[in-house]
């Protein structure tokens, strides 16, 4: 039974992950990510980590995904073309990227499948009663990982501060009567990676959305 569930959840997780990167509509990407995260939660359940599974569903598949959906709706639904960057020398770069990506994938397969297949007919680590319960996790957070716990809270604080700094976009050093920051940004071509390699300028709305991206990145990094 556990083996059947494992393979169902495992296939779901892999398929969801592939869906995230291959869907051209961002909304489908988000939905695929939800499927991926729920499959991961099922895998956590099989590992007897009930609390982590519940947290995964509530926090990631629930709260964080709602945020993503909001952002996708806010930015607007557009089908992303496959190759947005017609960079000079793009073919060589793409070829190189495919080569290195493939090499990395092979290496990871050797490492993960190699060790995983060796252990496939063994029993795995023993189960200790109480493992994975909220009580035990709380215990660890307040004893062994107390410092990490406190540091993570500071990380969230400073990520929020950083997001406010970037989002406020109104400097103190600005002379009176100077144009609003947003209008300057629209006049400038905002320095994104796509522009750095010579992609055509996109509309003002998407450029502003690009500007907002670092904030969300901050939030994700902190939320880890």
């Amino acid at each position, binding site marked *: 039974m556990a083996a059947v569930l494992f393979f169902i959840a495992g296939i779901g997780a892999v398929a969801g992950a592939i869906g995230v990167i291959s869907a051209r509509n961002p909304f489908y990407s988000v939905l695929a990510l939800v499927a991926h995260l729920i499959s991961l939660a099922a895998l956590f359940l099989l590992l007897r980590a009930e609390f982590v599974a519940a947290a995964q569903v509530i926090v990631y598949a629930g709260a964080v995904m709602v945020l993503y959906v909001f952002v996708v709706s806010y930015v607007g639904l557009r089908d992303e073309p496959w190759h947005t960057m017609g960079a000079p020398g793009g073919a060589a770069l793409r070829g190189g990227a495919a080569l290195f990506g493939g090499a990395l994938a092979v*290496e*990871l397969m*050797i*490492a*993960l499948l*190699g*060790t995983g297949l060796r252990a496939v007919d063994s029993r795995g680590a023993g189960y200790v009663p109480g493992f994975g319960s909220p*009580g035990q996790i709380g*215990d660890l957070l*307040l*004893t*062994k*990982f*107390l*410092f*990490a716990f406190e*540091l*993570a809270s*500071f*990380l969230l604080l*400073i*990520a929020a*501060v*950083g*997001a*406010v*700094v*970037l989002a*406020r*976009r109104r*400097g*103190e*050093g*600005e*002379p*009176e*009567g*100077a*144009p609003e*920051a947003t209008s*300057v*940004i629209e*006049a*400038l*071509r*905002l*320095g*994104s*990676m796509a*522009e*750095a390699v010579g992609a055509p300028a996109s509309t003002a709305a998407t450029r502003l959305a*690009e*500007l907002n*991206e*670092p904030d969300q*990145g*901050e939030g994700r*990094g*902190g939320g*880890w």
Partner: protein
Amino acid sequence: MSVALAAARLHGPHIDWGGLSPILALLGGAVVVLLVGLAPRREVRRLVASGLALVAFAAALGCTIWQWDASKSIVSGALRVDDLALAVNLILVSAGAATVLLSWRARASGEAGHGEFYALVLTSTAGMSVLVAAQNTVSLFLGIELLSIPLYVLCATELHRSPSLESGLKYLVIGSVGSATLLYGLAMIYGATGSTDFDAIASAIASGGLASDPLLLTGIALVVVGLAFKSSVAPFHQWTPDVYEGAPTPITTFMAVATKAAALGIFLRFFDVALVSAQVSWAPALAALATISIVVGNVGALGQSSLKRLLAYSAVAQAGYLLAGVVVSTRAGARATVFYLAVYLLMNLAAFAVVVARERETGLGDDIAAVEGLGASRPWLAWPMTIAMLSLAGIPATAGFVGKLFLIQASADGGYTWLGVVIVVGSMVSLAYYLRVVAAMWMRPGPSLGATEAASPYPAIAGGSPEADPDAIGTSTPAAPPAGDGGPGAGAREGFQPEVVGLALAAGAATVFFGIVPSPLVDLARAAGNSLLGLF
């Protein structure tokens, strides 16, 4: 009842407040500085926030010196306070304090808000302190994130200048890839060894015969890549020139000096403590990375006309030199790396302080033309820059020479003589571009400042691209900002900036002093090297 049970069962860890004090000073300072950002008057915010940031750095420095010679694990093994952590901490805190001085008149701190700006600098430094003391992969990763996230924001703090925003975005994207790679590698190492503590990882590798386990080796490889991203080791350096050029120059200084020290500190601790038994596996890979870094950095710097890009490529090359001390995995190697990190702080502070000063004086940005004729017009800026360039190239009678000597000696003693030869050849190549800066300062006539003054009321557009410059002028033409908070653009050109010039002179003098009398720094580095107990 369950509450009572929980209270009865839980025994919190012993918290060594003394050992934590440098980090607490920085984090506490960050909170206080953040609150000062709420003060109603702009001048109060500027003066008090930067002043309190300096006080926090001074307190952290004092706490670090107070803890000197400690050797203890604190908060149930999360951190290890020993001379290696404390020595690197001295470098980090000095770099942070210097950043505050350089930011004193910068546009960036005004645009981001003074309280927030200095709080971000303090927090980033605290993350670095955590990183170099980390003794557990969880603390390691949190330290990396706590240092990176404020830096992503700090790079973009010149909010009205597109290269700065571009730099922040690039650093965010590439830094996140680096962090994710590192995390994946740490997860694999945990999977192979079953532990997150460095000591337990070391004993699992030594006793379990894991040194050739594919899972562990892949984990190590991913960790190397992640840390190489952070310390800008080639071929993971592509972000470095763009980010260094686009970021506000005081922040570039901070990134160049402090981030590198922190990344090399954790390189030393993680590889020489946790993974020391697998040294035969990772040492050749690190040596190859060091070689690539030295070649790419020195060749890449040859064609640069922007001083910040030149120093960025130079930083890539220097990262290669510094890695040599990690490769050999001996106490002599650790000593050489820590010594060179301290020297690297001094020479880069001198060079970047001059770049900051000239950016604000000339309006030529960080182009090499900004320092032309400096020898005749501003000898007190030309001398520190000259010393810094000669020291970075490794000319005798400067501290850079002594540092390279130790690194080459450590490589030769550790069985990597060829790496020592690569360092020598790399230094010879590097003379070509370092001397170009020196020649520009002493042998060319100065630029005609009158013309540029008329052209640009906002002179401090560091590395401003031609397309960005007209926009920047557009934003500032309506009214010249009043003197004071407006930073370098404020009214009259900053003729004399005592804190920047003083910093350049002090760092330059220290570079020469430690080149002639290196023993104080050698003692510091020896204590740091000896605190790695598992090495010889």
